[in-house]
């Protein structure tokens, strides 16, 4: 028997309806600060990837002759073809900043990957199973949250410095793991909170009623609904990671010379601050720019992805 129900004759509906992402993007590009932030972030990313090809000199090349001609003092900005000058060993500061960008961006994204890798499963497990599992996981989370971050990272770095693990990738691997280990807590809490409210939604029950497995309900139905806040948290978490890495570099832990983390550069410059302040000023500007641009971009993303939250967080 044919369906007798009237078929609604829909008027042509091909003014391509906007998807969530398109919608969010159009809100994002109306936010000027976010766009400025986004452009700087993109620039930093380009520098991170192509820095060695764009830099005027290799980051570790010492120009001893030039140094000698200037009384063994760091060259100032613009002197002898060094746009931002050199450091006390005659290495081009601009090239070293590019290498710093590479380190900072790697830290930024790999640390966030570690954060997602630990935080999302922990938060999702806690929210989905609830009860005792939730209790245990959240207490572990609380303990990690209560760690003094920097102290823990320093301890970890010191403990593993001489091992293969500590030496891998010029000491970067250790930094990723250390910062990630203390950083996933916020993500776990965020995911748990999101999923706790999402799992009460009727579409979860509907998914169960057609026999979707628990794992697929979480991964296909729940997490995509929380993707907006997660993107925002990742973006806003990056400045913290960059800052942590710079701090470690400044303290002489983590990335080892001749690699040029921005923190390392500031540390190098601090000895020469009175004579050659440019050695501190330029890395400081780089750090500030990176932090601000990620923050602006993150704020913009938050407003764009969740307009209800605008100005509240």
């Amino acid at each position: 028997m044919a369906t007798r129900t009237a078929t609604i004759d829909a008027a042509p509906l091909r003014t391509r309806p906007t998807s969530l992402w398109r919608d969010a993007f159009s809100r994002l590009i109306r936010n000027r600060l976010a766009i400025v932030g986004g452009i700087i972030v993109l620039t930093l990313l380009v520098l991170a990837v192509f820095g060695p090809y764009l830099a005027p000199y290799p980051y570790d090349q010492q120009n001893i002759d030039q140094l000698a001609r200037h009384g063994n003092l760091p060259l100032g900005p613009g002197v002898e073809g060094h746009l931002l000058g050199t450091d006390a060993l005659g290495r081009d500061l601009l090239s070293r900043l590019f290498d710093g960008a590479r380190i900072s961006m790697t830290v930024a994204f790999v640390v966030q990957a570690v954060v997602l890798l630990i935080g999302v499963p922990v938060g999702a497990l806690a929210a989905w199973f609830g009860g005792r599992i939730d209790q245990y996981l959240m207490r572990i989370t609380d303990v990690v949250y209560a760690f003094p971050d920097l102290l823990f990272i320093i301890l970890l770095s010191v403990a593993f410095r001489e091992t293969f693990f500590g030496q891998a990738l010029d000491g970067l691997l250790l930094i990723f793991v250390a910062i990630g280990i203390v950083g996933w807590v916020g993500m776990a809490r965020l995911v748990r909170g999101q999923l706790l409210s999402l799992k009460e939604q009727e579409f979860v029950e509907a998914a169960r009623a057609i026999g979707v497995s628990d794992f697929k309900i979480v991964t296909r139905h729940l997490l995509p609904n929380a993707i907006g806040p997660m993107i925002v948290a990742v973006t806003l978490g990056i400045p913290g990671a960059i800052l942590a890495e710079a701090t470690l570099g400044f303290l002489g832990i983590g990335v080892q010379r001749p690699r040029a983390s921005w923190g390392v550069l500031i540390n190098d410059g601090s000895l020469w601050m009175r004579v050659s302040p440019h050695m501190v000023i330029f890395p400081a500007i780089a750090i500030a720019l990176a932090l601000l641009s990620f923050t602006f971009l993150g704020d913009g993303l938050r407003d764009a992805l969740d307009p209800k939250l605008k100005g509240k967080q």
Partner: protein
Amino acid sequence: MTLTDDQNRASEEPVVTELPENVSIATEEGRKLAEQLADAAPHAKRLLEVRNLSTQFFTKDGTVHAVDDVSFELDYGETLGLVGESGCGKSVTALSLVRLVPYPPGRIVSGEIIFDGIDVMKLSNEEMRLLRGKKIGFIFQDPLTSLNPTLPIGFQIAESARIHLGVSRKAAADRAVELLSKVGIPRARERLGDYPHQFSGGMRQRVMIAIALACDPMLLLADEPTTALDVTIQAQILELIRSLSEEFGTAVILITHDLGIAAGMCHRVNVMYAGRIVETGKVDDIFEHPQMPYAWGLLGSLPRIDEERGTRLRTIEGMPPDLINPGPECRFSPRCAYVHDKCREVEPELSSRAEPGHRARCWATEPGGWLNGSQ
């Protein structure tokens, strides 16, 4: 619904043993295997038998007896109405059938559910999951919140077929198109990639129906499928459910508080009150000779088109009882206009009335009761 259809259906479906995952009934071998399995297993006489089902919610204020000792059965292809006011246990009954009562705090504490010869209560969680969606479809009350806002509807319809029939992405998409056309959504293929917010409420309920029917289930549980929709759309959706259930020979349990809907859709009706079935019978019997004062009240409170304008709607005075620690009395007795002392002491059993299959839980209308024969 014809008898032969039902019999075919019953013999086609393997009753106890499942087909191996990788065998499709669509192939010749698969069909043979299915028939062998069906022959090997005893035929179930009825699609669904529920015996003494009790579902309780354990709250801090006490145990809520949401569904209390409910028994009923359902034939292949039959449409059964569960009617009653809010909180009487209709939805919990339906959720219990597919073991989706939220736990904690809810739990099925006792009872037997035999679905197509399968003892549902004895299935493992994994077996239960494979039963849901494949043989029992569920339509929820609110189509606005029952679809996942972040997934295209094509995916959501195909999901069930992908899980239960193990078909390819492509075949599942084709199935989704077929279903969408069946439920009356124009240009189905173009709309597979659309998201729920691009559909109206009525369209979304059509999508929900398509999802529920994706694997051609034997039983469709429709939990107030039209409550969230306006009246004109209501009629369309109900007509759709009816015509599709007739076309596919699907049995339907229709949960509603709207007696008009029940009268128009169902073969039989269970009237529920305070977690119990208080009257059950063929739809005509119940509407023409209701045997329980609560059913009179429900029928009396329907607005009528031939009534004089300006008359107030009749209501049933009082509130339904607290389902924490119900007493031994008839649960409707506090609100009943015909109450006797006996009602306040002992709750009556469901007992037979004049028409076959018509039973009610009332002292007054039992043979020899003080209202027997008056209605």
